[in-house]
């Protein structure tokens, strides 16, 4: 499974796994299901035109059912293709790193990861009325190297995810910093002047 593939370190724990918002999945499902009603619309249109007098389909009931069911098999497969993209397209935040999987097709998969201490900035884009009310948007994580930005599109509650990633990143960053007992002594002289 996925957790074995990303090989968690001994003290590494998964904080959250995020997929696209349900609304995005629903939109894609509706798009595919529209394909299911297309043959019915076609038949209805055919019946209401003069062509219906040339092609009398009244005696081909079982053939039409067979063709339509065959079409529905493809629709059924397409639905699972859409769901597979949704299911495998996942952002995993651990207490040490961020692992992103962008499933673009059945045999097209982009995987990336970066350690949280390399996190530079996180930007959030929430565009449109639906995205605002349903609370989903894009989250872009910039790394220190700057060569590649990690973008998650249409994820639910991007603000909360941002807060969680920053919190985990801060924990790592502050753990790595030397502990300074007395800030007055440790800070440069000009900063201590007013104290």
């Amino acid at each position, binding site marked *: *499974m*996925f*957790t074995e*593939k990303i090989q968690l370190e001994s003290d590494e724990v998964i904080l959250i*796994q995020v997929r696209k918002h349900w609304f995005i999945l629903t939109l894609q499902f509706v798009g595919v299901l529209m394909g299911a009603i297309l043959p019915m619309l076609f038949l209805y249109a055919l019946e209401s035109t003069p062509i219906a007098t040339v092609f009398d389909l009244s005696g081909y009931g*079982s*053939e039409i*059912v*067979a063709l339509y*069911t*065959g079409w*529905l*098999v493809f629709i*059924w*497969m397409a639905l*699972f*293709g859409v*769901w*597979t993209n949704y*299911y*495998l397209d*996942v952002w995993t935040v651990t207490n040490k790193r961020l692992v992103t*999987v962008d*499933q673009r097709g*059945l045999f097209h*998969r982009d995987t990336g990861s970066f350690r949280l201490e390399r996190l530079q900035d996180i930007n959030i884009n929430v565009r449109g009325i639906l995205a605002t009310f349903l609370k989903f948007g894009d989250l872009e994580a910039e790394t220190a190297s700057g060569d590649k930005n990690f973008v998650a599109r249409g994820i639910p509650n991007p603000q909360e995810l941002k807060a969680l990633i920053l919190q985990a990143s801060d924990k790592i960053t502050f753990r790595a910093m030397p502990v300074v007992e007395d800030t007055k002594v440790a800070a440069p002289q000009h900063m201590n002047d007013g104290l």
Partner: protein
Amino acid sequence: MPFEITYSIESIGTILFYVLVLFFSVYGIFLAYHWFSFGTSKNTSTIALAVYLLGGAILFLTLAGSIRFF
């Protein structure tokens, strides 16, 4: 005439039915491989596979029934 091939609509339907079953099965194997290799939950992957096969079985039964009445 050395030989004669006759096609009935029923035999064409039957051949297409088996081709579709093969296509559906191969696609199902690809999907299941992805779910169980890269999925995050074994339970979810198992349920998805069960739903895929169950829905497919219903559709293929309907298809087989309609081909029989050609």
